[in-house]
């Protein structure tokens, strides 16, 4: 009788095949379509941030449900290639993937489907691979983190003014010890330092982009170590909620965590992907080329801050002062008079940095290949969109490293 089951199933499969051969003739439409590949789903703040951007651009450009296909929970494996190929088969004009490890698989798909544009966030290979329909994109998020650091600096100043026993030591929960995270916490630290010049910072890495328990533990460890303000670069709500429980102010990332942390959430920087989506969609619709390596900025609307949570400050006066400080710094970043990584604001082993070669062109050995100190500042995100600032500066102590 099980044999019957097997036969029935096989027949059903074959019947389905025939139906499909008839059915699949109908997809030769020329309406614009875009496909998205996400590593996780909305439960990850990282992916939610990309998906929020999709919703924004969908509303702005008036795209229909049928024009957007989103594939979630796609691992960094052959599954990613399959997902990309299926999106291309489904008639997508653009396929966008959001995780660093997707890159190799997207590149494979790009070579197979030259008529489809493949855009990959956080990747590093487009500027050396020379595959015409393969593109990287990122944003100068270090500027956003710097501004969030300014807001934190004002809070720290307020805490020190209220209680002269407060030691200006802050903490940072990072995922891994590599450039994207190093660039992020260093810019955050320099933002705080622009307000409180004697601030120091401790960094604890979790070794995972998403591990709520570990992030919570790391935040608590830092708090127990005497850190009076915490920020993080990891994707769960672990660190922010630990801060709320402990009553320690927190600067978030990827979006507001105010709903769960009404008293301790200060501000959050995030990359808004909607401007990039809008850009690539318009380029394709107009038949124009997409930049090989695109860096979003404050000016393009890619680097944004959430509203400042005034409740995190003891008085409305300091909250207002924080807003003013952010606006001033933002204006100066935009007019170029302020550089986040200006070499006169930090030292490395007691020395100012005059020359540094970063690993900009990807290779297995991480060979430093490009001089990145120009005109007295470390020129982050200019040689390629993905961050490459990976220097340990004075004032920041790494409690562990996780590669």
């Amino acid at each position, binding site marked *: *009788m*099980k*044999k*019957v*089951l*097997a*036969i*029935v*199933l*096989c027949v059903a*499969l074959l019947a*389905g*095949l025939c*139906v*499909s051969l008839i*059915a*699949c003739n109908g*997809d030769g439409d020329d309406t614009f379509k875009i496909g998205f590949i996400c590593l996780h*789903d*909305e439960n990850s703040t990282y992916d939610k941030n990309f*998906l929020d951007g999709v919703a924004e651009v969908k509303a702005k450009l008036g795209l229909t449900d049928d024009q957007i*296909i*989103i*594939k*979630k*929970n796609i*691992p*960094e*494996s*052959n599954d990613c*290639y*399959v997902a990309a*190929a*299926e999106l291309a*088969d489904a008639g997508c004009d653009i396929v966008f993937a959001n995780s*660093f*490890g997707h890159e*190799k*698989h997207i590149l494979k798909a790009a070579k197979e489907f030259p008529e489809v544009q493949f855009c990959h966030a956080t990747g590093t290979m487009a500027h050396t691979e020379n595959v015409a329909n393969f593109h990287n994109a990122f944003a100068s998020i270090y500027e956003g983190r710097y501004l969030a650091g300014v807001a934190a600096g004002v809070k720290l100043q307020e805490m020190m003014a209220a209680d002269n026993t407060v030691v200006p030591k802050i903490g940072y929960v990072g995922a*891994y*010890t*590599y450039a994207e995270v190093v660039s992020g916490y260093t810019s955050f630290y320099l933002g705080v330092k622009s307000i409180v010049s004697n601030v120091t910072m401790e960094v604890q890495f979790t070794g*995972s*982009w998403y591990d709520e328990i570990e992030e919570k533990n790391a935040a608590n460890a830092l708090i127990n170590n005497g850190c009076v303000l915490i920020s993080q670069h990891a994707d769960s709500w672990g660190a922010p909620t630990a801060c709320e429980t402990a009553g320690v102010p927190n600067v978030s990332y990827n979006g507001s965590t105010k709903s769960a942390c009404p008293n301790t959430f200060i501000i959050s920087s995030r990359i808004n992907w909607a401007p990039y989506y809008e850009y690539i969609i318009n380029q394709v619709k107009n038949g124009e080329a997409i930049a090989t390596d695109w860096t979003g900025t404050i000016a393009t609307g890619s680097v944004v801050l959430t509203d400042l949570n005034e409740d995190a400050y003891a008085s409305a006066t300091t909250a207002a002062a924080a807003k003013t400080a952010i606006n001033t710094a933002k204006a100066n970043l935009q007019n170029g008079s302020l550089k986040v990584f200006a070499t006169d604001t930090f030292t490395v082993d007691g020395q100012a940095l005059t020359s540094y070669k970063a690993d900009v062109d990807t290779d297995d050995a*991480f060979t430093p290949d490009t001089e990145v100190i120009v005109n007295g500042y470390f020129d982050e995100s200019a040689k390629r969109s993905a961050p490459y600032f990976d220097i340990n500066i004075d004032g920041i102590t790494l409690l562990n490293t*996780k*590669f």
Partner: protein
Amino acid sequence: MADTTKKNPLVRISKRSDIKGWKAMGIRAIAFVIALLIVGVVSTATVGGDIIKIYTTLFIGNLMTQRTVWALLESIAFLLLVSLAVTPAFKMRFWNIGAEGQTLMGVLGAAMIVNYLGGKIPEPALLLLMFATSIIFAAVWAVVPALFKAYFNTNETLFTLMMNYVAIQLVKFFIQAWSGKGNTGSKDFNYGYLPKIGGNEYLLGILIVVVITVLVTIYLKRSKHGYELSVVGESENTARYIGINVKAVIIRTMILSGVLCGVLGFILFGKSANLYETAAGGRGFTAILVSWLAKFNPIYMVGTSSLVAFLQSGAKRAGDLYSAGKFFTDLTVGIFFFCIIASEFFINYTVKFRKKTQKIISEVAIEEKVEEVNE
């Protein structure tokens, strides 16, 4: 006494083994339809989509293009291979739930060769070495619990389960060791891709599984080994009495399980030349169900793995319609599993409901009648 009725239980359940084939299929079909209805209700409640669209995608979504058909056949083949791997052990009542870890060790074995020898030796030699290492790694992972079971009678279910986690940690360790500064949780390689047959990247893996299916069927049904392991499964004492070396059978069978998982690990690595901790993709666990549903028969397993893989990827596509992500897939497949497993209950047991209250002649009633007669 006025109350002369005795209460019968509302439902009576009794074992049956004589159910007719058409009736069993009918029960399964009903379970399938019920599952479909529940999926309909649940998907309306969660993603709120168009039911008809979800149903059609669930069934023909897998068959829309050549690529999706090939991908489906491949996922059936992979699931079938792990199911075949766990089956010999299951037949001797050795509950190996470590196929996930064994497969992962196979992937790690291939990665190890590619990491150290990729690009340094000719590709055919590289592939052969990868194949051998995959098999050895996976077999070692399977034989350790088998040795402990054979000599110390440890609980194999817990042991094999634990070995999964050790394998995952080992993979994580090597990813970090090999990636150095650039660890992103997965390690990519440039060598060790499986050759394509006529430009088709799915065919080779599928063919390997077809051959293995035939071999395992013959092994289980026609060989002395196959007979021995079913005797061990029925009764270890009987096996011992008729002179079967039970320890040897346990160890030998688990090595076979490991080897088959190793083959899958090799193929999985060869698909994309990368190492990551979820490379086995949960197949090691799904395979338990596939094997059990097929009553440990390799031929039926072709059917059950097709059904499960078909539902899994169909549900994934249906979820994509509404950007629902993984939860929708898991939920849908879970509903089907639940209903199908429940249907097995109704096949193996007969359920009788109490008919309308039966009057039972109680002792009192009999006494009354006797009195009547006497008068």
